[in-house]
């Protein structure tokens, strides 16, 4: 190559580099073209956990909104959603299909603890980002160093349980605690957080813990045992349906313990469903980190207004369903990362930004919460606020509690 040709080539490369900020001509990794970024997702849109399926549609609604504003540096996001029915046996082939046939740039917001665990090794071997998985299982933040292509987003379950432990120790120091938990990684994660958080008080305060299987018709038997063991404080570490059932059954037993409900089931719609079935849940405690669309205090909030504008892009999404604002909020973080990556849209760079350089104020999260990662901390959200159910709605209590650094 002569010097003149080399100069011309250099000019072309520079032109290409400049062009990428407004249109882009250089594809920098699999799944990226001059005008498109391809993301993949698996989620349960049918099956036992189908209620979560709307999250992916809400995420797509945010991407549609961003695309309508010109996309990210001229590239539009294309989002491929596949239904794994909450069944890891389906998550694996569907994820391989997205990676090998669709050639996605990254997997985004795949849902389910077992499901996402089942593809973690594969995605890490293939060096495909598994970003912002929709599960609070502590392992997705804690074990980052052995899975550098995987990252969670929502607060880890153990951190949430630590907050409950603090609340109990402070407000009910003589509580006799009964725990109902799902007999898998998710339920045990919550239980471990509670035991760790109570410290040396755990063995005396927890009078009994009973597990249930997702396949059982009702947790009535387990709750009767907790009642008989004399518990006056009940933790319900359960997905939505058994949670609703539990709340109704507890009242049915003429029992009025202090009730803690985990964040994965505390959507206001479900709490109201429990009330309609006879449950007396005034005073129930949970935590929140996302703005509740049904809470009137956010009516004139800019973030909530933006959410309502965004969610209008999804015809099947109920704007008042808390799962949808979750989807929009996590999609916001994804767009944030891709925007920061700018013209360096390689999988490695995107992963680096997501796992160690996040410092985001997300308009859909409670004021004061930041989405943060550093080279030594890979839990993006670690702040939550205690909420209490009174008069048909959740009410924020106290101030934001920061659990950063408490999970070793």
């Amino acid at each position, binding site marked *: 190559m002569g010097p003149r040709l080399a100069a011309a080539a250099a000019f072309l490369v520079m032109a290409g580099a400049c062009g990428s900020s407004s249109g882009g001509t250089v594809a920098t990794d699999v799944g990226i073209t001059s005008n498109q970024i391809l993301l993949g997702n698996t989620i349960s849109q049918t099956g036992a956990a189908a209620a979560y399926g709307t999250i992916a549609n809400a995420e797509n609604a945010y991407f549609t909104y961003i695309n309508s504003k010109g996309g990210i540096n001229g590239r539009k996001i294309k989002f491929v959603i596949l239904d794994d029915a909450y069944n890891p046996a389906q998550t694996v082939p569907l994820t391989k299909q997205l990676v090998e046939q669709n050639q996605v740039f990254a997997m985004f917001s795949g849902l389910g603890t077992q499901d996402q665990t089942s593809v973690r090794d594969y995605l890490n071997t293939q060096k495909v980002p598994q970003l912002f998985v929709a599960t609070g299982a502590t392992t997705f933040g804690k074990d980052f160093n052995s899975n550098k292509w995987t990252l969670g987003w929502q607060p880890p379950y153990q951190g949430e349980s630590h907050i409950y432990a603090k609340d109990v120790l402070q407000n009910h120091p003589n509580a006799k605690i009964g725990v109902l938990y799902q007999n898998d990684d998710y339920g045990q994660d919550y239980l471990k957080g509670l035991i760790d958080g109570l410290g040396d008080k755990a063995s005396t305060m927890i009078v009994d813990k009973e597990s249930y299987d997702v396949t059982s018709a009702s947790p009535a038997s387990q709750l009767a045992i907790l009642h008989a063991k004399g518990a006056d404080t009940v933790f319900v570490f359960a997905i939505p349906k058994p949670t609703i059932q539990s709340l109704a059954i507890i009242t049915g037993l003429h029992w009025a313990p202090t009730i803690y409900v985990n964040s994965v089931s505390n959507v206001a*719609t479900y709490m109201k469903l429990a009330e309609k079935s006879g449950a007396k849940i005034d005073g129930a405690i949970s935590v929140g980190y996302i703005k509740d669309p049904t809470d009137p205090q956010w009516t004139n909030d800019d973030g909530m207004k933006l959410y309502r504008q965004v969610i209008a892009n999804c015809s099947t999404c109920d704007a008042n369903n808390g799962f949808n604002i979750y989807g929009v909020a996590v999609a916001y973080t994804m767009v944030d990362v891709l925007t920061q990556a700018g013209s360096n849209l390689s999988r490695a760079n995107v992963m680096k930004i997501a796992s160690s350089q996040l410092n985001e104020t997300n308009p859909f999260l409670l004021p004061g919460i930041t989405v943060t990662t550093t080279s030594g901390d890979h839990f993006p959200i670690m702040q939550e606020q205690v909420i209490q159910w009174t008069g048909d709605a959740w009410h924020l209590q106290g101030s934001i509690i920061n659990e950063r650094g408490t999970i070793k």
Partner: protein
Amino acid sequence: MQEFLQQVLSGIASGGIYASLALALVLIYNAMGLVNFAQGEMAMFATFLAFTLIGRGMDYWIALPLTIAIAFVGGIVIQRVVIRPVERAPVLTLVIVTLGLATLINGLAGFFFGYLPRLFPSPFSVQTIDIFGAAASWQDLGVIAVSGVVLVLVFLMLQRTTVGLAMRAAAHNPEASRLLGIRVSWMLALGWGLASAVGAVSGIMVAPILYLEPNMMQTVIIYAFAAAVLGGIESPLGAVIGGLIVGVTVNLAGTYLPGVGGDLQLAVAFAIIIAVLVIRPNGLLGRRAMRRA
């Protein structure tokens, strides 16, 4: 003692749920000598129909009989359209067809009605009453009472009417029945219609407790199988007794057997099925098994 009583009562309550669906399984077995794996899904779908009717403003007491009637016709239509072409096929073919039907109906329900759990109205109060210090809800007791009424009706129909006799004959010995002038194929269809109607009653009764969604009956049907097998799969009374025994056994095993807890409840149900088939294949009230001719 109070804990024991509470576990027994709560077991009887779950047992009532299993019994109500087991009755439908017994009916279909009496009609075609086979169980219908889609029974639970058909019951769920009928419940969604009732839910839709009530949601459109129809009175509960009009929606209930109307849904049962629709379920009856629906059961007959399914038999005519889906089962009849394979009526004389090997048993395995029929089993696979009903399994496919279960998946199809589940998917259709998800498509039409979505997967959010919904509160279904109940004619019984959500209040509970004390029985020697243990609590039982009116809803639970109502499910058992309704199962009892359905049991009596099914029993009278099968044992005391000519149609019932013809149905049983058609299932036991189709060739001989045909020679006697019984329209065997229509007896099968009638069996499907009746089982579907009984299933609809079951779905409508248990929906206020289990919350209505497409997967509502998926685990119930396994316990219902255990109940029907335990009671003797041909016997309606056996199904109800079997249901109550399964409900109570599962609870007591979970409470008092070390290591069972809440995790292995389903395993207890399967253990009951296996134990009955090994030790007493005819169940508690069933007659000696006969081969399909």
